């Protein structure tokens, strides 16, 4: 099992969710986050005061998936989240050692 974490542009969230559903991903968790990468920030001007905003708003999605779905899932996120411009985000893949469904007590791939 793998845990796929992706940082994407906020307005791409719906497309990514649809793409993941289409390949059979059962559920994702979404968090609004801020951060910086190569895109860097921008400046904001309030009357005389200028501020550099380093952290831009992004969306972080997390999905626990079966190992055999990994390549498809990565491809789905890559395609749906891409604009071709700087700041499209990144995908991180982790090994997932255990999953437990709280309601039934199922474990492993059955719980996904």
């Amino acid at each position, binding site marked *: 099992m793998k845990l796929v974490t992706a940082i994407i542009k906020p307005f791409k969230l719906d497309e990514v969710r649809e793409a993941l559903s289409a390949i059979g991903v059962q559920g994702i968790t979404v968090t609004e986050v801020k951060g910086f990468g190569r895109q860097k920030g921008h400046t904001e*001007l*309030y*009357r*005389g*005061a200028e*501020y550099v*905003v380093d952290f831009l708003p992004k969306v972080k999605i997390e999905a626990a998936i079966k190992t055999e779905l990994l390549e498809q899932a990565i491809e789905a996120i890559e395609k749906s989240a891409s604009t071709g411009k700087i700041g499209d985000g990144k995908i991180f893949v982790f090994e997932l050692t255990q999953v437990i469904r709280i309601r039934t007590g199922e474990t492993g791939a059955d719980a996904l």
Partner: protein
Amino acid sequence: MKKLIALLALFGACSLAAPVIAQDKAAAPATEAKQAEAKPEAAAPVAAVAAPAAAAAAAAPAPVPNKGDTAWMIVATVLVILMTIPGLALFYGGLVRAKNMLSVLMQVFVTFCMISVLWVFYGYSIAFTEGNPFFGGFSRLFLSGITADSTAATFSKGVVIPEYIYVAFQLTFAAITPCLIVGAFVERVKFSAVLLFLAIWFTFAYLPMAHMVWFWPGPDAFTDAAAAEKATAAAGWLFQKGALDFAGGTVVHINAGIAALVGAYVVGKRIGYQKEAMTPHSLTLTMVGAALLWVGWFGFNAGSNLEATGTAALAFINTLVATAAATLSWLFFENMFKGRPSMLGGASGAVAGLVAITPACGFVGPMGAIALGVIAGALCLWGVSGLKRMLGADDSLDVFGVHGVGGIIGALGTGVFAAPILGGSGIYDYVANKTAADYSIMDQVTIQATGVITTIIWSGVVAFIAFWIVDKLIGLRVPEEQEREGLDVTSHGETAYHM
């Protein structure tokens, strides 16, 4: 050729101005007669029974308030209250960080309440009764002697309004002025220090300034040259000099702007100023506040006419167009020098225009008002950027940059654009009962400058001493850890937003 054009312009301006004044004056006796018919029980009863209205008016010993004027003044007073709570509170509140939102709302709200009570205790008496040219007397302490039948003079002979509504209208001016100062030291000042400072400053700066600029015995005392001289001698110091301030450029805006600048220096900078981001937490609320200020300002400016006449309408349209022009001007220059026109720039430009037109609104023509607005929009933008950097103080919400600079532009500009040759109404001569024929722009600007300098010195000195006293008694700032945590939780025990 130039002379000819100037002559033509002068003639044009005079012919434009004359009917306005004529209408104004003609309206006064007519309304008097009307109200003698409409409300006989309030007029002297014997006179009311007498058949012809004209005879009744002549025989009536004391003028009775006109219902239209009274109704207008009640509406105007409510509008000025709208400016402060919620208008100014939201305008300022949106500009601070979320952790200090409630502290700003509280400072404005409670200052308004405190000054309201102090005003009726002793403020009205010191500002608006006869004393010396700098301080009034104590005859109206606790509003003693005022009844529902008491009247206050207006700017027309024989026209009065109920004194209670005059007290209330002036109360709203006295209350908003200290609230303006709050913007200079938000996010770091002790709540108790704000209240104590403003109570002292109100007593020794606002009240004498209001007395100096606005107190006079009323137009009815100006019967002939000798009486006029006597009446003028009883008026406030700057009134005697002939300073023009229709709705409070000196008394309200320069006065508050200078005290704010002193406050920003004395209280000191916020922790992290120019190192950490101190971005406004809700420009939406700031826009709502600025819009409420604009709407309320019609009561402030047009209400300062004290009667529902053509001059009130003049002040109304000036308040409308000067503000619009200042907004456009600010945004134009902001776009030119900073790259983008901003919502905060638009809201700030509107307030700058409102401030600048305040002293001028009843004296200048609409084109003069637009010129004033354009100048104020450009110079106040400089006031909050270039000038602010030069001054080096953390005047957090730019009280000096907008109200101080805008107020000075307005006060001096009044002297220029009140000139009949520039479409202004000139100066009314209450002895001759017509507009004075001669108007010297240079002389009037000199008089206006006297008013500006007097206000700067008076307000600055009083503010400095008052801050010193408050610092010694209770201290000005909250401890550093409270400032970092935010004043909402540490000073008031609550949080503005739960999301």
